[in-house]
């Protein structure tokens, strides 16, 4: 059973097998073009595979949006050290719930994407790092991997091609920071998930110091389609430099929240109003977090834009990991800011001072404001402290905490004023729903 009904507005490439009977099985996969891309890729040169990925204009779906083909080309294929492949399935960005579906409904697509990545960089081992909360998915992936081995789609001399490839799952244990690729690498090595200094980049020295090809689940899942149908065909689905489709996770105040596959450049308002069925009760849109809680918030009037990496960047936010959180006019932005900061304070690894102390301090101030003990000077203080974190922390988590805060402080000062004057406090103290349930 699918988590949400598909929409006719979707362009289903990665999700096209979703909803098929027994979609996770190898037989279903094979019956629907499964492993054809691998058969094609195995006859291609690594350079040609990477060129095809470059031609697709695929950009990393984990959040940073780095061009995938370029990332693949950085892995030294001729290194005397063996290459490894790591899939980032630590999906933890608030608002994001797509990798889960890709693994649940079409695990072989991910395995095939990994195999093609293995061909491209001459790697023969791949690890899927799955967040600990997704235990059922780890078991599910293990079953799919086991089936692939059993039927000769993993292991030695796959289907007589001479290509060897092993896939393993690896469980996380609850740490948002491990979604940061170098922290993930430390985690997979059995350590605390503390990000690493760069350079060296993972492509050169990643897991266990080996050259590592590391991408998000969705990124790898896009690869079979790219190889099978050609990079150009995939690219054509999106906009220039923003190739293909991506999975958009819509949550919050909409009538039909869900995960929808849409081409890059899909209009944001259309996504809210048509894909997701609009805002309940005919209420007005107040704000949107376009790509997961790390992205600066957009006010309603800023949302009439196409969703691609570059436009979002121009709008002062980010496309991120595809977690679009819709907030209607009943939303209290101060409490939203508090909840987001509570998350970052909880998840800060603590390695560097500005993030460790900054997130906690900001959380405390926001808590105090919501409890009615705020004062006018807190507003500029929040902004200034967030800016003291911005760009100064060891990894991007500090920025991820600072940016939404800065945007909410700057775009919704009147909501803070309401707390300072006592108007907004009463309902918060009584734990009354400040939000209308959809």
């Amino acid at each position, binding site marked *: 059973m699918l988590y949400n009904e598909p929409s006719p507005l979707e362009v289903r490439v990665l999700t096209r097998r979703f909803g098929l009977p027994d979609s996770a099985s190898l037989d279903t996969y094979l019956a629907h073009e499964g492993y054809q891309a691998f058969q094609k890729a195995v006859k291609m040169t690594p350079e040609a595979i990477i060129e095809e990925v470059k031609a697709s204009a695929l950009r990393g779906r984990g959040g940073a949006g780095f061009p995938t083909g370029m990332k693949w080309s950085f892995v030294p294929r001729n290194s005397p050290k063996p290459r490894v492949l790591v899939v980032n399935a630590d999906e933890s960005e608030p608002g994001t719930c797509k990798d889960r579906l890709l693994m649940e409904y079409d695990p072989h697509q991910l395995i095939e994407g990994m195999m093609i990545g293995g061909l491209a960089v001459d790697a023969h081992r791949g690890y899927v790092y799955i967040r600990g909360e997704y235990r059922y998915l780890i078991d599910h992936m293990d079953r799919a991997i086991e089936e692939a081995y059993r039927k000769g789609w993993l292991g030695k001399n796959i289907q007589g091609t001479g290509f060897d490839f092993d896939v393993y799952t690896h469980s996380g244990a609850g740490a948002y920071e491990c979604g940061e690729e170098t922290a993930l690498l430390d985690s997979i090595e059995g350590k605390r998930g503390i990000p690493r*200094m760069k350079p060296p980049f993972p492509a050169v020295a990643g897991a266990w110091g080996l050259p590592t090809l590391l991408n998000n689940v969705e990124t790898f899942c896009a690869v079979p389609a790219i190889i099978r149908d050609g990079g150009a065909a995939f690219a054509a689905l999106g906009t220039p430099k923003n190739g293909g489709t991506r999975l958009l996770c819509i949550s919050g105040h909409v009538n039909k929240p869900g995960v929808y596959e849409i081409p890059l450049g899909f209009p944001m308002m259309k996504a809210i109003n048509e894909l997701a069925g609009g805002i309940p009760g005919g209420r007005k849109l107040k704000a949107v977090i376009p790509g997961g809680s790390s992205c600066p918030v957009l006010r309603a009037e800023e949302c009439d834009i196409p969703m691609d990496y570059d436009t979002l960047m121009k709008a002062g936010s980010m496309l991120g990991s595809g977690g679009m959180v819709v907030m209607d006019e009943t939303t209290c932005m101060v409490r939203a800011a508090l909840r987001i900061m509570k998350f970052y304070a909880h998840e800060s690894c*603590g390695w*560097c*001072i500005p993030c460790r102390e*900054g*997130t*906690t301090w900001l959380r405390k101030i926001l808590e105090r404001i919501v409890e009615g003990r705020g004062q006018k000077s807190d507003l500029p203080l929040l902004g200034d402290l967030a800016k003291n974190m911005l760009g*100064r922390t060891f990894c991007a988590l500090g920025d991820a905490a600072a940016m939404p805060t800065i945007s909410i402080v700057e775009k919704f000062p009147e909501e803070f004023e309401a707390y300072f004057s006592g108007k907004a406090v009463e309902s918060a103290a009584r734990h009354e729903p400040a939000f209308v349930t959809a």
Partner: protein
Amino acid sequence: MTTTAVETVTLTIDGKTIQSPKGTLLIEAARKAGIEIPAFCYYEGYSLQAACRMCLVEVEKAPKLQVGCTLPVAEGMIVHTDSPQVQKARKGTLEFLLTNHPLDCPVCDKGGECELQDMVFRYGAGESRFTEMKLHIDEQQWSPVVFYDAPRCILCYRCIRVCDEGMGVGALGLGNRGASAVILPNKVTGDNQHYLSCDECGACIDICPVGALTSGIYRYQTRPWEMNHVGTICTHCSNGCKTTLGVRNGRIIRGNNRDHSGINGEFLCIKGRYAFDFVEHPERLQSPLKRVGDRFEEIPWSEAIETVAARFSEVKAAGGKFGVIGSNRTTNEENYYLQKFARQGLGTSNIDHQRTGDLTTLLDALQGRGGALATVADVYHAKAVLIVGSDLSQQHPLLAFQARAGVRHHDTRVYTVTPGPVREDKYSARGVIAQPGGEIAALEGLREDLAKEPELVILFGDAIRGDAVRALVRFADSLSIPVKYVCLLDYANSRGAVDMGLTPDLGPGYHPVDRPGLTLDQMLKASDLDVLWIVGANPLRNRALAGENTFVVVQDLFLTETARRADIVLPAASAYEKNGTLTNVCGEVQRVTQAAKVMGTKPDLEIFGLIAREMKINVGIWQWQKMFEEIRKTVRGYNVPLPVVATGGAAQTNPVNGRVPSLIRPEEIRSAGDTLFTSGTTGRYSNVLNAVLESPGRLYSGK
């Protein structure tokens, strides 16, 4: 590190054009140009963290502030370390840091020498905008030595690195995460009663920039500015670490090496840092004692000196038999004076000390070849180090530290031949297990690897003695690579004792004497000794004295087993209570400076002088400077540059030229086998060494 011509780059820091070798970290390049880029987590010689973010600087054309401690300098780089943006960043970071810092500076040990105080003073804001509750965690005691106050901790990870990388122990780690992150000791329990099992060296405490790690010995004793600081040499093992003793009102209350000078830099082990406490142990002898029946009676110094001198003169006049046993810990001046007293004043060659390593055979085998004796620095710089028959980390902590630093900084290859697992196994290129006596045979197993090394420093323990030393040198010669040696010895002046001729067959500078006297063992077994004069040694701890009627004079700090047999006991001053020079295991001469004074005691040199004066014999003026001058003029190898020694430096003695015709009896050479937590007599009277939970060698005796 030897490097071939390094490429230099030109860059500009704060308008100053500087040249720096390519690859230098910006923070270091700036420091050399006299510009401070502040940092907490950056610490020279240890791995980079980029965690504290204090070193962020503006680099033109970079999109955001750059990390000064990890950024290598590049050609044409233009850096601003004091721009408004940088100032704001530092102020912001310090403000963040202070949010959970308790600001209990008035009662903090570190107050007055705290890096956080200094940073806030220089770069911070005058006021705080933080009005929330601070996080609190109760202080924990992890060992008799180490206390941890988590709220004060700024998480710079220096302690973790110094313990892991520097000491090779790895007893500290990081627990929890985010704002609740804390330093963890290696023994973590579910009920939060964490404790440490480690070297207890206190390096973590010393390197802590704030008062998060404090020592059980020093905490709440004083304000730092109330102390005087006396730079001297540790009196315990033979490595000769410089230690700075913090002294208030004549009491030593702290040991560290705060100026990082000397052969050890900032390194000290538990003994150098804390085991000065024997000085004021309640059982310390503070009056001369005279045997009356089977007990001792306190007598004045004048009576004691008169009694000793009278008996010495009487025996001498009667042509009686003297025995003199010297110390592994007394100064060169005292050792020189004592052997002169024995040979010229008493007319005896029966002088010896407990030999702890076969240095004389090594010198003989080397026959005076130049540059064959390693310095402490050589152990660090060497491309390869071979350790034979010694648990180096336990017995020679500085030398082990040097080898580890070499591995860390320039991939020194360490080889071991030991009877069991040792700490060096963690990072050694190869290790061979060999039972005592089998070391030389076992070396063959390493021949192929060693022959490929460009150079080698060999350190060997007391298992290698007599012919084994010659075999070792032959083996090393056959490798056809430059080799230097360290003959490992036990105590602070074991080397000086041999050099100064506290041996029955060799005088100062290894000059053979005409009629060799009795060795230590022979003296103990001689039933006809009239006088046995024992200075700073405890040979009767586990052996008996044959001479029932022997008149025994003992100079020592405590009523040892040997002192209990004495007729007269003279209370001596320890090395922390006198001036002079010591020679370390590598033959490096260093100055000791008086830090404390214990009532009723006298330095051994003064005691010798007073006895000589009372006997009306002339052995020389009992001033250390006069004696040192005489040593420099007359003892082979000791013509060391005075300014180096006088200013607290270490000057290696020159090798002895030609053969050393020693009559050494190898079976008399034995190391006491002290560990990190023992140190002969002084160790037995150190409360700190007795208080730590770690039993000697426990950590490394097994897996």
